[in-house]
């Protein structure tokens, strides 16, 4: 079974630039999550999708972050404009609707300079 795919693995941008991350969840997984993991901390939920609908985006900084899940499969997370404090690893995860176990991708390490 293929795992959660994320790209790119690494990205370096200057502050005020924009960036986008892509995630392809495990086939058949209806629930998709984006987490932000700042160095030395545990992952923090940014947004949760159920199919192509948003279940929870209460911790998403909506003035600069946006996310979408087209056709209930792939998802993109965008930051515009980026700030220095956005430097982190962005993790995508997916799970079946009726199970709570989540499978994580390798993450995208973002450095904002």
């Amino acid at each position, binding site marked *: 079974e293929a795992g959660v795919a994320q790209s790119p693995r690494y990205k370096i941008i200057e502050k005020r630039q924009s960036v986008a991350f892509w995630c392809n969840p495990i086939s058949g997984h209806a629930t998709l*999550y984006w987490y932000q993991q700042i160095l030395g901390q*545990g992952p923090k*939920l940014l947004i*949760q999708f159920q199919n192509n609908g948003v279940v929870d985006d209460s911790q998403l900084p909506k003035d600069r972050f946006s996310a979408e899940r087209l056709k209930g499969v792939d998802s993109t997370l965008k930051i515009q404009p980026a700030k220095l404090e956005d430097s982190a690893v962005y993790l995508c995860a997916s799970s079946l609707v009726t199970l709570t*176990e*989540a499978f994580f991708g390798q*993450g995208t390490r973002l450095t904002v300079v």
Partner: protein
Amino acid sequence: AQSVTQLDSHVSVSEGTPVLLRCNYSSSYSPSLFWYVQHPNKGLQLLLKYTSAATLVKGINGFEAEFKKSETSFHLTKPSAHMSDAAEYFCVVSDSDTGRRALTFGSGTRLQVQP
């Protein structure tokens, strides 16, 4: 609201000695609890999970955890540490309320294994 407290940010053990990583949780509903491991530059991997079945849960690589509702704890143990166990460990809770199943992570415990 759900939350997790990992009581130790760093734990250091000698190879071959027991491992204990402590976790307390707060949950308004019947929680599901997990331990994930993160090796350097690797993705998060599920070690074990508790979902209201047996309170003693066995996971991969010889790890196990016991759910104690009275103590709101879910400590992770292993009888004998191996060098390859050195990693960051996260205790995670998921509430079974209103279909919101997002995972809430603790701050992590870094396990060092000395030769």
